[in-house]
């Protein structure tokens, strides 16, 4: 059960990160704020889990990182979407759009008989 949950969460978290960064470069904290606000804290149970996801996406070349200065003048690591990341986001979000609603509908069904 735990595995199923973490797999699903991990892939949806990746997608949300890409979505967040599509607005422009952000540091980790800002990304976490954005995701929490948008998803009502369902996806990001522990804020810390955001960071391995960010580093994994960076390794895959979908996002790039750079140290910069935050609004309140602190040294912060900023992430931005790369071209590859943008393409990945488009591909993955279209998959979600196509499949998410039917899956939810199927899971919600109460009777085994085909309609």
């Amino acid at each position, binding site marked *: 059960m735990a595995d199923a949950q973490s797999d699903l969460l991990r892939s949806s978290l990746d997608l949300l990160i890409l979505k967040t960064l599509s607005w422009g470069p952000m540091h980790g904290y800002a990304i976490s704020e954005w995701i929490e606000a948008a998803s009502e804290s369902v996806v990001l149970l522990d804020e*810390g*889990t955001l*960071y*391995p996801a960010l580093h994994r996406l*960076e*390794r895959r070349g979908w996002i790039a990182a750079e140290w910069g200065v935050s609004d309140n003048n602190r*040294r*912060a690591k900023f992430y931005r979407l790369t071209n590859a990341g943008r393409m990945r986001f488009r591909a993955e979000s279209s998959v979600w759009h196509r499949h998410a609603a039917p899956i939810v509908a199927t899971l919600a069904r109460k009777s085994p008989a085909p309609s």
Partner: protein
Amino acid sequence: MNVGHDWRRLFRLPRDNARATAREIDDEIAFHLAMREEKLRRLGVEPNEARAEARTRFGDQQLVREECVSIDQQHAREVRLMEWLDSVLADLRYAIRTLRRRPAFTLVATLTLAVGIGATTAMFTLVNGILLRPLPYPRSDRIVQLYQAYPEKGLDHWGISQENIAMYRDRSSDFESFAAYRGGRLTLTGGDRAVRLNVALVTADFFHVLGVSPARGRPFTRDEDAQGRNDIIILSDGLWHSRFGGRTDLIGSTMELDGQPTRIVGIMPPSFQFPDVQTQAWLPMGLDPTRRHAWFNLGLARLKPGVSIEHAHRQTTAIMWDWARREPDLMGLTSIQPERTRMETKVVALQQAMVGDTRRPLVVLLASVGLMLLIAIANVATLLSSRAAVRQREIVLRTALGATRSRVTRQLLTESIALAVGGAIIGVALAYVAVRGFTHSEIVALPRLSEVHVDATVLAVTLIVTLTSGILFGLLPTLHGLRGRRAADLSSGTRESAHRSVRRFNNGLVIAQLSLSLVLLIASGLMLESFRRLTTLDLGFRPDGVTSIALPLPSKYSNSATRSNPFIATLLERIRATPGVQLAALAWGLPFEGNSNVDGYLIQGRPIPSSGNEGQTYQIAASPGYFATLGIPLLYGRDFTTADDTTGTPVSIIDESIARKFFTGTNALGKRIRVTGDTTWTTIVGVVGAIHDDDATQLPGPHMYVSLAQQGSNQLALAVRTRGNSSSTIQEVRAMIAALEPSIPLDHVRLLTSVIGESFATRRLTELLLAGFAAIAVLLAGVGIYGVMSLSVANRQREFGVRLAVGADPAGLVRLVLREGVVLAALGVGIGVIGALVATRSMTSLLYGVSPTDPLIFLSLAVLLAAIAVASCVMPARRASKSDPLVALRAD
């Protein structure tokens, strides 16, 4: 440590910078916590509480940190690998550009390497296919061959009888399955033309032991081992296609073998070629456990898991001894004491048994080819080092411009590996062609040849050899070229000293090349001389002009002299009347055909030696005229006559080697002799000269001839000595036989000289290849010394020019350069002689009539090589004497 560090830099392997990575991650986490804390405080949470809340919401910091570190480290490694690959590609492009700028150098170096690597690959392909690769049967390492040894009787390779087969099969507990087999020939009749088949006569479990089932039909069953039930056959894929056109409805149908209807029950897959590639069909031998004589079979068994060969050997030998004690008249005589006779059952891994005598020549050839490769590498190293001298400025310049020493070394290494790979590509192509030529050649007689081909193992080994060669010839001169060279050396004044060290290095390589090629030269000289002695050896008979025709008599004549005599008489009479036929005779077998019967013999009136101590003799039944046809001299007495038939007294003719042991002069005549396998005494009527048989390297073995008209047989050999054009005469003889008896297949017709030649096939091959390798080695060494001397002369143009300008004698300069060549040649030849003394000792078993340290061969080849070496220096020496002082002076 330092070395490791250097190597790392050379190949830019990833270094651990885990600490920096971890620090960055810590900073990132700290930033997040601080921001969260700040926000909470702005919302009015107490500072302490805000801090705790931020941590709680973050989760397990340690876990996050570790996960991030590991991801980042993987990432860093990947990035560095990509960068490294990029730089290697850049090096490669640079190397190819450089090589293309010097096409002559590149061509010579590539071809030299192609020959070296190609020959090594081809030889290794043979060694791999024959010696290394497991046999193509499941768990083939568990399959063993069984035979017996009876050292006291000189029987090192004594087969097993049908009684022995049943005994080992039923009493040994070490084998999962046990079978036996022997080769045989049968005549396929019933078609428009009789055809002789090479078959294997086997016991039921034969296919089971090997773990191979027929592709169609079924294997033999145990009850088909019994005589009377064995009228069935399994065909090879080849025979199925060649004789039956691959018809799919063949199983269950009947073919005629020696006039007997035989049912086809199976067809083997094309890959199945056991005992050898010639085998066309398998039949049950019709096992008769009461047949105590005829030790013609070989055992074939699969060991139970965990049972060692050694254990099986002990167990089967115990079984054999028990049998020998219970069978006191085993050899037609009284009591055997197996302990004393040192009889044993040999259990040998099948692979080893099949490879047999070819191991040594193949290993020697592989070693020779290895030496040749070393010479090629040395040659290319010389070429590169002379370039290194030329490129000194370039290297120093690049170093001055900031390239690290390891970077430059890597660049040069890339260049040499690129050369090696280029050579390897051509070499593998050459090897592929050579191996194909080999395996498709008629004259090469090696076991498992059909399994020999260039495969993944071979290519992997070639790759390793190639990279090693590249590093070897690339690294040697570059390390040497770089040593102590600094930017200051850009001034050309120090070039002379650089040249001097290059020269020392090259001289070393030349000496190495000369000595290695002398080792090869001497090895091949010894082989050539052995071969010359073997082929000019007086065999005791004159094979030239004699044609051998295998003559299997149809069953209506077989095994009874009375039945076959009239036919044989008519046959010989008509053959002798054929125009062009000088002489003709029939016998059980001709020398070197390997069909002779070997048995112990006893002389009447002589003390009977204890069993196992009798002398062994070849026993051959021959028709009148046999000795004259083969050119064996009749020393005393008479030849067989037509009167020596079943109605006359049994007679025999012995050869000199028996006669000399027991008799003097003519007193052998009238004495009586018999073989231990037969109780009939025969009266000696003649003494003939001794002949070599089967293996010319052995001393002539005793031969005892009996009268064919008194013995009979169904497998005969016809010897025809022809005058003039033999092929048209033989054509007529064949037509005549076919007219007389159409059921005799006549497809085994060979010149006796080529039969003998076949017994030398492996030697011939070894000799030819070794001579080829030696010739290439000498050529490479000659080119090597020429190149080195030319370079040395070119580099000393200035010195020579100055010498000439101050009045030196040009002839003196020639002498000066030649003297240098002589010193090199002497050193190379000296070291080579020592190397050859060590190396040729491993060849003793391949030599015949020549000592591995034969002084004449050593001396003459050493002188030959030295002469070639010095001759290669003549041109460069002439050039030295023509040095122009002005050119030299202007050079700076």
